């Protein structure tokens, strides 16, 4: 038991448990209280005809429209028109007049225009392909009406999370659903370490640590599946889709549930430890391609498909990283805390068995 002393000491120390609790609390409080950047939610009408006068109503989320708000419709960097008579109906509702030029920026029947709004408080908001310009048969291409200049854009103020359509406020789930999976991975990685340690040294205590880690990992995985299911219901529309990552994660969880079944089906303590340690190593080897590799090779609804890193610049902004990474550490430490309780329980049981034998 000599070599275990540092683990025992670390387990009994309480600073990392408090740190875990503080980090999770931080992720919950800051993650929930930070506002979202303004976003544009709807626009009516969706189609305009070349050479007409249109009144367009725009609605936003978290926006602070004022009289100084400016509105443009942009085709590309060289073609844009600006709207006039901007009326603020509410802090999130605008009505603008647009005199649509008879000329068109490009030879197409339906031309998508991006909506750009700039407000002093909010900075710029963009709605890609917000409306479609229907060309007339006699429309000229490349008229000089399309030369509005988009300039003097304000900067967004304050610490805010990005606004994404469909996701809306649920972008905050990134701090709770995703760290569960990351923590599960970290805990399972440690379980492999202790499984190898058991197979090398045959110390039953290593097996206890490995199996306790896996039990908490399964809890995390199940919670990850459930929270993901909840998130999917209100963003993708159903509790479960045939997304690769979902199915592969479910398969991975079943592999680990099978580990628990394997353990409970063997009564002999040493045999149980040996078989489950070997199984745990192979289970992790299966987990990595199932959850990390296969979803990246095919199309997936999750970020990180098609070979790009899931937490790259496109999917996460720096403001979110400041909550996301502490969240991962926090959830991992809380998981280790719960694991330490299981370890204590299992050690008591093992002592009891040894006492009974004596």
């Amino acid at each position: 038991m000599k070599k275990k002393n540092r683990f025992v000491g670390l387990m009994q120390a309480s600073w990392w448990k408090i740190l875990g609790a503080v980090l999770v609390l931080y992720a919950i409080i800051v993650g929930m209280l930070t506002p979202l950047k303004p976003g544009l939610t709807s626009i009516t009408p969706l189609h305009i005809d070349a050479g007409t006068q249109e009144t367009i109503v725009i609605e936003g989320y978290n926006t602070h429209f004022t009289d100084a708000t400016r509105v443009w419709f942009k085709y590309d960097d060289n073609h844009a028109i600006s709207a006039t008579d901007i009326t603020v109906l509410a802090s999130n509702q605008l009505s603008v007049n647009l005199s649509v030029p008879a000329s068109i920026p490009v030879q197409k029947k339906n031309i998508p225009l991006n909506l750009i709004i700039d407000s002093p408080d909010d900075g710029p908001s963009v709605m890609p392909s917000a409306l479609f310009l229907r060309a007339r048969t006699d429309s000229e291409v490349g008229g000089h009406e399309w030369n509005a200049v988009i300039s003097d854009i304000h900067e967004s103020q304050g610490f805010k999370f990005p606004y994404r359509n469909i996701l809306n406020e649920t972008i905050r789930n990134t701090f709770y659903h995703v760290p569960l999976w990351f923590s599960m991975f970290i805990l399972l990685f440690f379980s492999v370490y202790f499984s190898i340690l058991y197979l090398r040294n045959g110390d039953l205590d290593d097996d206890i640590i490995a199996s306790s880690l896996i039990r908490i990992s399964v809890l995390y995985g199940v919670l990850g599946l459930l929270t993901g299911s909840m998130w999917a219901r209100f963003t993708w529309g159903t509790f479960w889709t045939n997304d690769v990552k979902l199915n592969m994660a479910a398969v991975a969880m079943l592999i680990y549930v099978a580990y628990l079944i394997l353990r409970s089906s063997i009564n002999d303590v040493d045999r149980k430890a040996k078989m489950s340690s070997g199984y745990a190593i192979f289970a992790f080897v299966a987990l990595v391609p199932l959850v990390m590799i296969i979803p990246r090779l095919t199309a997936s609804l999750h970020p990180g498909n098609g070979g790009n890193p899931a937490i790259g610049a496109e999917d996460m902004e720096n403001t979110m990283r400041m909550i996301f990474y502490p969240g991962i550490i926090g959830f991992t430490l809380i998981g280790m805390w719960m694991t330490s309780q299981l370890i204590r329980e299992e050690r008591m049981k093992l002592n009891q068995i040894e006492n009974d034998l004596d």
Partner: protein
Amino acid sequence: MRSIPRYMKNALVLFCLAAFSTDMAAQGSMDFMRSIGKIYVVVAVLVIIFLGFIYYLISIDKRLKKLEKQQTNE
């Protein structure tokens, strides 16, 4: 010895708990869940995690109490 393994019971109860809460939230009112930028989806996620943790802690607590009782009896 044990008719149903402990972890199976754990998993079952955990699943029922979460499925129930998810179902309630879904049936209750779609409009409610989608109001204020779907913020209640985040609340539901936090509730699921919280319930899962609490359930696990209670189950550990129960088993430890049992063990302690056995040891004091010996």
